[in-house]
C-alpha cells in the first residue's frame, strides 16, 4: 500500500511539472499584455505579482509653475503624472549618483537651488532667484512599485495598430471559408454515400488521396489562375471570394471525408423508406440527413473555422497586405518584424489573435476534441 502512495505522489508531481511547463508560456504572454509598457520592457513578467524596485527618471515643472512665497521662489508639484501607488525611497539629481539622497532629504542642484522629494512623489523646489528656464530639471528616483495592471495595451493595438480591422477581416475570411465547404461538401458526401453513379469509387479514392496532399502543391498554379483571372476581367487578383474558394479547396477533402464517415453510419433502411415514400434525394437530404448531422456539422465547423482562423500561409498568398484585407496572423507576423522589441504591442496582439480560438476551445471543447480526433488528417 505504501508503494502505491509513493507512486501516486510521484505521478502528481510529474504531472504538475508538465502542466506548469505547458501553461507558463501562455500565462506569461497574457500577464505581459496587461502590464505597463515601461515596466514590461525592463522586468520579467514573473516579477509583476510582487512589489518591485524600479529606477526611473522624471522631470520637474518649468518656470510657469513657480510661485513666490516670502523671499523665495517655489515650484511645488508631483513627479508622477498619475501615481499608480509607487513609493519613492531614494532619489538623486545627477546621473552619476542616482540614489544619493534618502527620501525627505534636501538635495542641492549645481545652480544652488534646492529640492525636497517625498515618498508619494510630491516635491518642493526652492530657489532664491526667479526660475528662468521653461524646462524643469531631471530627478532620478528609486521607487517601490506595487503590482499594477492596465488595459491600455489593448486599446492601443485594437485602435491604433489596426488590429481591430484585421480582426474583422479574419472573421470575413473565416466564416464563409467554413460555411461554403460545409454546404458543398455535405451534398458531395451525401452523393458519395447514397447515390449510385459511375466513377464513385474513384472519386472516393481521390478524396482519400487529397487528404494528405500538401497545400504547397496548389499554391503556384492557383496563384497563376487568380492572376490571369484578375487580369482578364480587370478585377483584383487577391480578394475575399478568392481566399474563400482557396480555403474551400484545401478543406474540401477533409470535410467530405469526415461527413462521408458520418453519413455511412446512418441506417440504410431510413433512406430506402424515404425513397419508397417518393421523396427525392433533395428532400431526403434536407429533411432527414441535415437534422441528423447537426453534431457532425458542429465538429467540422469548429475544426475548419479554427483552421482558417489560425492559417497564415493561405492568407499571405491570396490576400493583400493592405489594412482592409490583412488577416490577424499576417498582421501579427508583420508586427513581429516591425515592432520586434515592443513587447507590449506583440504580447497584446498575440492575445487578441488567440481570443476567438481560446473562447471556442473553452466553450465547445467537447466538439472541438471530437472533430480534431476524427479529422486531424487534414492535408
Amino acid at each position, binding site marked *: 500500500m505504501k508503494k502505491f502512495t509513493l507512486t501516486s505522489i510521484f505521478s502528481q508531481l510529474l504531472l504538475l511539472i508538465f502542466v506548469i511547463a505547458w501553461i507558463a508560456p501562455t500565462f506569461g504572454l497574457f500577464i505581459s499584455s496587461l502590464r505597463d509598457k515601461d515596466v514590461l520592457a525592463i522586468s*520579467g513578467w*514573473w516579477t509583476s505579482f510582487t512589489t518591485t524596485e524600479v529606477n526611473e527618471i522624471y522631470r520637474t515643472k518649468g518656470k510657469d509653475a513657480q510661485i513666490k512665497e516670502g523671499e523665495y521662489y517655489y515650484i511645488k508639484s508631483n513627479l508622477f503624472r498619475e501615481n499608480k501607488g509607487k513609493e519613492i525611497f531614494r532619489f538623486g539629481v545627477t546621473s552619476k549618483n542616482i540614489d544619493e539622497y534618502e527620501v525627505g532629504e534636501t538635495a542641492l542642484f549645481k545652480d544652488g537651488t534646492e529640492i525636497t522629494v517625498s515618498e508619494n512623489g510630491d516635491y518642493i523646489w526652492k530657489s532664491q532667484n526667479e526660475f528662468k528656464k521653461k524646462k524643469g530639471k531631471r530627478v532620478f528616483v528609486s521607487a517601490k512599485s506595487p503590482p499594477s495592471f492596465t488595459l491600455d495595451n489593448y486599446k492601443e493595438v485594437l485602435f491604433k495598430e489596426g488590429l481591430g480591422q484585421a480582426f474583422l477581416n479574419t472573421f470575413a475570411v473565416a*466564416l464563409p471559408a467554413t460555411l461554403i465547404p460545409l454546404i458543398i461538401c455535405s451534398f458531395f458526401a451525401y452523393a458519395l454515400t447514397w447515390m449510385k453513379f459511375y466513377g464513385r469509387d474513384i472519386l472516393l479514392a481521390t478524396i482519400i488521396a487529397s487528404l494528405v496532399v500538401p497545400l504547397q502543391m496548389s499554391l503556384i498554379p492557383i496563384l497563376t489562375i487568380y492572376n490571369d483571372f484578375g487580369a482578364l476581367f480587370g478585377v483584383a487578383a487577391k480578394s475575399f471570394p478568392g481566399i474563400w474558394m482557396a480555403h474551400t479547396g484545401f478543406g*474540401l477533402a477533409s470535410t467530405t471525408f469526415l461527413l462521408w464517415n458520418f453519413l455511412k453510419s446512418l441506417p440504410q433502411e431510413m433512406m430506402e423508406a424515404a425513397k419508397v415514400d417518393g421523396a427525392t434525394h433533395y428532400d431526403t437530404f434536407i429533411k432527414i440527413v441535415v437534422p441528423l448531422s447537426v453534431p457532425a456539422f458542429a465538429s467540422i465547423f469548429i475544426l475548419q473555422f479554427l483552421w482558417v482562423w489560425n492559417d497564415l500561409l493561405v492568407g499571405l498568398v491570396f490576400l493583400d497586405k493592405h489594412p482592409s484585407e490583412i488577416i490577424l496572423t499576417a498582421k501579427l507576423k508583420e508586427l513581429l518584424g516591425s515592432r520586434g522589441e515592443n513587447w507590449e504591442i506583440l504580447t497584446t496582439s498575440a492575445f487578441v489573435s488567440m481570443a476567438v480560438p481560446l473562447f471556442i476551445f473553452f466553450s465547445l471543447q467537447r466538439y472541438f476534441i471530437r472533430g480534431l480526433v476524427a479529422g486531424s488528417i487534414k492535408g
Partner: protein
Amino acid sequence: MSIFSLAVTVLIGVLFFVAFFHFSNFLLDYFRIKSKKKFALENSLRVVIFIGPAFIVLFVFIIYPVFETIRLSFYDKLGENFVGLYNYAWAIKDPDFKRSIINNLGWLIVVPTLSTFFGLVIANLADRVWWGSIAKSIIFMPMAISFVGAGVIWKFMYDYRGPGDQQIGLLNAIAVALGFEPQAWLTIPIWNNFFLMAIMIWIQTGLALVIFSAALRTIPKETLDAARIDGASELKIFWKIIIPYLEQTILVIWTIITLLVLKVFDIIYAMTNGQWQTEVLANLMYDWMFRGGGDTGRGSVLAFCILIGVIPILAWNLYKHRQDQKV
C-alpha cells in the same frame, strides 16, 4: 472596409451556394412533375447538381494544381520554356536546399517522437490523479492557438538581453539564475532548430494526449489489475502492457504529426525566416515563390519534394481504404 460591408460580402458569398443548391433542385423537381418520362435523366442530373460544385473545386484546387506543379518543375522561372531537369540540378547544388532537407529530417525524427512520447506519458499520469481532466485541458490548449501566436509566445520565452541587463525572457532568466550566461537562443546554429521544434512539440503533445486518453480507456481493466496483483511495477506495466496495446494508436498519431511537420512553415517564417541555418522546405518554397519576382520552376521543385515526403502515407491510406471497402 466597415463591419457592414464585410457582413454583406460574407452573406452574399454564403447565400450564393445555398441558392445554387436550392434553385437547381427546385427546378429539377419542377420539370420532373411536368414530364414523367425523363426519369433516368433526372437521376443523373441530380447527381451532377450534388457533386458538381465540390467536384469543380476539387479539380481546380487540388487535382489540376498537382499535375501543373509537377509540369512547372520542368519549366523555367516564368513557366514558359521547357528546361528539363535544370531546376532539380539547381536544387541538389543549392546549400539552402541541403540545409532544408537536413532540417526537415531532423524535425521528422524529433517532433513526432517527443510529442507522442509526452502525450502518452501525460495521458497515463492524468488518468491517475483527480485533477487529471484540468491538466489535460491545459496541455491541450495550445492546439487551439495559431502557429504564429505560438511563435510570439515562444519568442517572448526566448527573449535575449545583454549579460548585465534584467532578462525578461523566462528561459534566459532561468539560465542567469542558475549561473549561466544569457543566450540568444534562436541564433545558435543547429541548436536553434531544437528550440523551434520545442514549439511544435508544445502544440502537438495536446493532440497526442487527447487521442491516447480515449484509447487508454479501451484497455481492459482486468489485464492491468492482474499485472498489478502479480507485482508488476507501474513502469513495467507502461512498457509491457500499455505501449503494445496502443501500437495502432501510436502509429496513427505518428502519421498525423509527420504530415504536419513536413509542411511546417508558419513557425519558421515567423521566428527566424530560415536564418541561422533553420531553413525548411516549406519556407524555402514560399521564399522562391516571391523572391526576385518569383520563380515558379524552383518553387514547384520544392513543393514536389514535400509531396514526395507524403507519398508513403498516401499509399498506406489508399491501401487501408481498399481493405475497408472490401469488408
